[in-house]
């Protein structure tokens, strides 16, 4: 967790009153997200948590510049976000390995298109491939790797490009429980060494608590921020293993609190459905 002094400074990412309205076939519109505001501080890991359909992906995609907001604005380092940019690299849930490139070339891709010299690229890629523990596989093609390995490559590829903020949309959602743990613990060590700011979407409560310094809990219909929590029980540091987290004082309280909110969302949903009948 970043030192307290950072929190007073201006935010790395500022999301201000952002809304997204989709036009459905037939002229009707729906507000996927409405009036979403939050800040992410420099060096922070921030998790967007909430029930399915609350607009987490929509918010993240707007921050990435892949989707334009219908209202409000977002700022990264005080510059307004307008379209995709290499300062906001994104990792998706589904595998995005470029099948026709080796692991090494995948990791170098961003640097290559941004005109980094071959030597610099190689060194930088080596560094990140080592960080994700795939040095032995750097000349392998993605089809020879497991799902978890491919996702590590995607993370290295994004980080090697030197983004200001790393955006992740349920990056470990498709992995089995054990690989997921490994990846989450690896994520912590990567963030500790590279000091990158992270905005990660998840619907996994434990994942959010384990990774995040700040949790933005979103509710549905329309998707908006229900609660902005700093995981204070971590007391200014991050866990390196799940056991450590489970044993920490305050973990169960925050888990219970979020579960209640989740349950509450489910109840609201049912009532809404009944009213519509």
């Amino acid at each position, binding site marked *: 967790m970043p030192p307290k002094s950072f929190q007073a400074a201006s935010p790395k990412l500022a999301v201000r009153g952002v809304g997204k309205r989709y036009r459905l076939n037939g002229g009707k519109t729906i507000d996927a997200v409405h009036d979403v505001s939050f800040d992410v501080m420099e060096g922070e890991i921030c998790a967007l948590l909430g029930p399915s359909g609350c607009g987490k992906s929509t918010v993240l995609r707007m921050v990435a510049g892949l989707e334009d907001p219908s209202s409000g604005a977002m700022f990264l380092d005080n510059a307004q976000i307008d379209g995709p940019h*290499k300062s906001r*690299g994104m990792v998706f849930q589904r595998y*995005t390995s*470029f099948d026709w490139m080796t692991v090494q070339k995948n990791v170098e891709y961003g640097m290559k*298109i941004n005109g980094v010299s071959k030597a610099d690229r190689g060194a930088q890629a080596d560094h990140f491939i080592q960080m994700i523990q795939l040095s032995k596989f750097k000349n392998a093609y993605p089809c020879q790797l497991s799902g978890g390995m491919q996702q590590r490559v*995607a993370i290295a590829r994004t980080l090697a490009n030197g983004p200001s903020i790393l*955006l992740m949309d349920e990056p470990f959602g498709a992995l089995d429980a054990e690989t997921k743990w490994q990846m989450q613990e690896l994520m912590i060590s990567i963030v500790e060494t590279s000091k990158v700011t992270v905005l990660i979407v998840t619907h996994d409560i434990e994942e959010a608590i384990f990774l995040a310094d700040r949790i933005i809990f979103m509710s549905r219909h329309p998707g908006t921020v229900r609660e902005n929590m700093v995981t204070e029980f971590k007391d200014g540091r991050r866990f390196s293993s799940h056991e450590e987290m489970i044993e920490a004082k305050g973990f169960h309280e925050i888990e219970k609190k979020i579960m209640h909110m989740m349950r509450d969302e489910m109840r609201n949903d049912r009532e809404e459905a009944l009213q519509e009948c």
Partner: protein
Amino acid sequence: MGAGQRVVEREELAQAPNTKPRRQRWFEYQKPIPVVWSLLLGISVWVLFFGMWELAAARGWIDTLFMPPPHQVLATLYTMIAERGFLSDIGISIYRILLSFAMACAIAIPLGVLMGSFRTVDAFFNPFVSAWRYLPAPAFIPLLLMWFGVGEGSKLALLFIGVIFFLITLIMDHTRAVRAELIETAMTLGANRWQILSTIVLPAVAPKILVSMRQMLAVSWTYLVIAEIVAATTGIGAVMMRGQRFLKVDEIMAGILVIGMVGLFFDFLFRLAYRVLFPFVANGQR
């Protein structure tokens, strides 16, 4: 559970009678089979086919006037090549195929990729391309003959319009199927539109394009024979047509045989190119 217990179990397992590798079976759903096997099977179907045919002819089950046995067809093929310059007919047919196909690809690949990538390009060309696909190419033969005469032009044109619209549509569909996440990933890494086209979209569809080309080249042969039968004095189709006029069934069959073999050869070349160009495609997806 202690570690000792686990070791015992493993030893027992090693001694157990049924730990032999599982017997290789002939029929396994979608499982690959040894290369030698598939080669042998592929050859044996032809041996069987020609063997039955030869047998049927020898026993008099079929009328050899209309269906001469394989050895006679082969003998005829030999004399056609040795004494009547059949090789040059084969050559000119291959030349027609390759030239028209290259022209079709030169337009279909860029156009198909652009149509699959940009909805604006798609909206402009698709109504045109789709309509053409439903028009049977041979219907244009009378027109083509009037425009180009009986020279090379009319044949190349028929072959060209016979494949290009299908090729465009196939390539467009494959391009459209390039996953959005790949493109969006490249965007968030800082790639511009041109870089995405050249470094993501093209390499991602390239294997599919090659497969489409392989499929459409086979269709090309259909139009070649039509073109050469209708109006040509050279080429495999023309030779076959002459054979029909003089009731030389063995010459017609020799022509068919050659088309089959040349087709097989090109198919082989495409498969070889695929292996060499796209070593990264997982084996199961080839």
